[in-house]
């Protein structure tokens, strides 16, 4: 049945009935096109989401001091807890086997100047380990190192956008910038995948900051990175031991929930991944909806096509076409059109997605893409349902008696 003659017959009906061909082809092409675009956008959304939350290392605990809520060991409730350098040293000493690195973080805001240009930037006083915790990528120069910590040097590592704003494209390395009233030498420039805000920070050694602030030894936040090889269970145990240790050191009641906060990035990660899969579900749902709309569209058009052809089919039957040949020409035509149009929709959708690239980053759609497998599967589904949708009215048309079909003037 799929010989040259029947194909010629199909091509003739297709080319002589342009509106019909266009309608059914357009529905399918549009359906697939929208499916590909929506699915791609969904994936793009997921990408930017992942970027937001996967920007930092995932094997870290962040410790923040709070206020006590339970009286303990003669201390009243409502006492402010403070971390200092000894805490850091003791944690490092006690948990040496679990810890990969530690770093404090003190955050300040300063007006930073270079040759008359100035702006407000966040300042982070840190230890070398902070580079790994934030996944900071150095573009040039170096990061804060142990010598800086020991010697309390006035060296600064500045973000890409700080360099861009203050130095206007010129090289910042080796130049001196004013942070507050003090002069710092720029020893490095970094970038960060966490977005523009992350690139508007300046890093200095934490010891230098402590020296500036009347030689204090207070720390705001302690970041502890555990060795990844201790695993999830090991990390959970470590978290508990660390909390117990710190509470004991600071005379806090073991059940006090407010005195020290510990944020486990691994827990955040799990929540984020749940949100990510929710996003995936939404994307899939939207995709399915589009596909169903496409199927309904092609079904309607097939009903219309068969209705429009009733008389022609009656004539064909009167001059000797068998019912099966009637069903076959309708199916062959519809499958051919849906396949060709589906391919066009698929191709143009993928083309558009890949041409978009990063241009929609501002709308949180990063690198939109669709698996070729998913796209082809959707196209095949539409073709199959188009064929089924065509088969039902085609079979009815094939059963109509020629006289009934021909009576319809």
């Amino acid at each position, binding site marked *: 049945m799929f010989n*040259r*003659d029947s194909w*010629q*017959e199909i091509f*003739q*009906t297709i080319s*002589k*009935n342009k509106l019909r061909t266009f309608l059914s082809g357009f529905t399918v092409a549009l359906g697939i096109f929208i499916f590909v675009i929506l699915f791609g956008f969904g994936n793009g959304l997921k990408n930017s989401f992942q970027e937001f939350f996967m920007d930092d290392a995932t094997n870290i605990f962040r410790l923040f001091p709070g206020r006590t809520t339970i009286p303990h060991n003669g201390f009243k409730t409502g006492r402010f807890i403070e971390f200092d350098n000894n805490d850091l040293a003791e944690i490092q000493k006690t948990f040496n086997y679990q810890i990969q690195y530690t770093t404090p973080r003190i955050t300040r805001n300063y007006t930073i100047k270079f040759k008359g240009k100035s702006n407000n930037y966040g300042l982070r006083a840190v230890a070398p380990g902070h580079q790994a915790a934030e996944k900071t990528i150095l573009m040039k120069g170096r990061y804060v190192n142990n010598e800086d910590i020991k010697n309390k040097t006035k060296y600064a590592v500045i973000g890409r956008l700080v360099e861009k704003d203050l130095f206007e494209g010129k090289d910042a390395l080796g130049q001196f910038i004013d942070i507050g009233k003090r002069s710092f030498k720029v020893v490095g420039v970094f970038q960060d995948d966490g977005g523009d805000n992350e690139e508007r920070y300046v890093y200095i050694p934490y010891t230098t900051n402590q020296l500036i602030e009347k030689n204090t030894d207070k720390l705001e936040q302690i970041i502890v990175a555990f060795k990844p090889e201790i695993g999830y269970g090991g990390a959970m145990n470590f978290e508990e031991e660390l909390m117990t240790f710190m509470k004991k050191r600071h005379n806090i009641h073991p059940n006090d929930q407010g005195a020290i906060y510990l944020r486990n990035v691994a827990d955040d990660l799990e929540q984020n991944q749940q949100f990510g899969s929710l996003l995936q579900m939404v994307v899939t749902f939207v995709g399915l909806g589009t596909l169903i709309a496409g199927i309904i569209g092609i079904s309607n058009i097939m009903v219309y096509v068969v209705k429009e052809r009733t*008389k*022609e089919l*009656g*004539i*064909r*039957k*009167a*001059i*000797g*076409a*068998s*019912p*099966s*040949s009637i069903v076959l020409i309708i199916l062959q035509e519809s499958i051919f059109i849906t396949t060709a149009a589906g391919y066009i929709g698929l191709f143009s959708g993928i083309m558009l997605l890949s041409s978009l690239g990063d241009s929609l980053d501002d709308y949180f759609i990063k690198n939109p893409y669709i698996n070729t497998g998913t796209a082809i599967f959707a196209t095949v589904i539409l073709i199959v349902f188009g064929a089924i949708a065509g088969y039902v009215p085609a079979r009815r048309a*094939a*059963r109509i*008696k*020629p*006289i009934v079909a*021909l009576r319809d*003037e």
Partner: protein
Amino acid sequence: MIEIKDLHKSYTIGKNALHVLKGINFSVKEGELVAIMGSSGSGKSTLLNILGMLDVADEGTYTLDNFPIKDLNETKAAKYRNKFLGFIFQSFNLINYKSALENVALPLYYQKVPRKERNETAMKYLAKVGLADWATHLPSELSGGQKQRIAIARALAAQPKVLLADEPTGALDSTTSYEVMQLIQEINDEGKTILVVTHEGDIAKMCKRIVQLKDGVIIEDKFVEQVRASDHV
């Protein structure tokens, strides 16, 4: 060629059964040109539809070329129609997006005749009805008379045993009607059996035999002196 015995047919419309054919006995020999006449509602179209295997009788036997026509399913009916019968309709029923040649070749397509042979045969019949020059034209570019001649060529192309014409001149003016009847007479002269359903007396007189139907029965069946259509053209 055609042998009908005690043919009954009724239609149910709502709760009422409408008895359309009430026992038709009728036979046609090879080479005859028969007019079936009757007012509307006399059952002449129903008779033609049954003869054309477009409809099935309730009772009675139908033999076509010594071949009993019974227990037809759609596929079988399509095969027999294609093999035995050629149809000519009042409204021509050409496929409007196919050229004259393709319309004529269509029955051969369903006989699975190879393409080249199909087109040659179709061209031969187009020439026979005098429209060889119009082979590539679409039906919409042809006049009513030309369309009917294309339809006749199509009916002939499959080389059927019998031609069935349902009001072939119903949609044509009288001059064109006579031209079409002249063609039908010429085809009959070559020995083809033709049945023409008509309600026009002058068209009926151009046949060799007139069968009068009234209220589902044959009231008159007579051979007549054929009026040649060429005398009127």
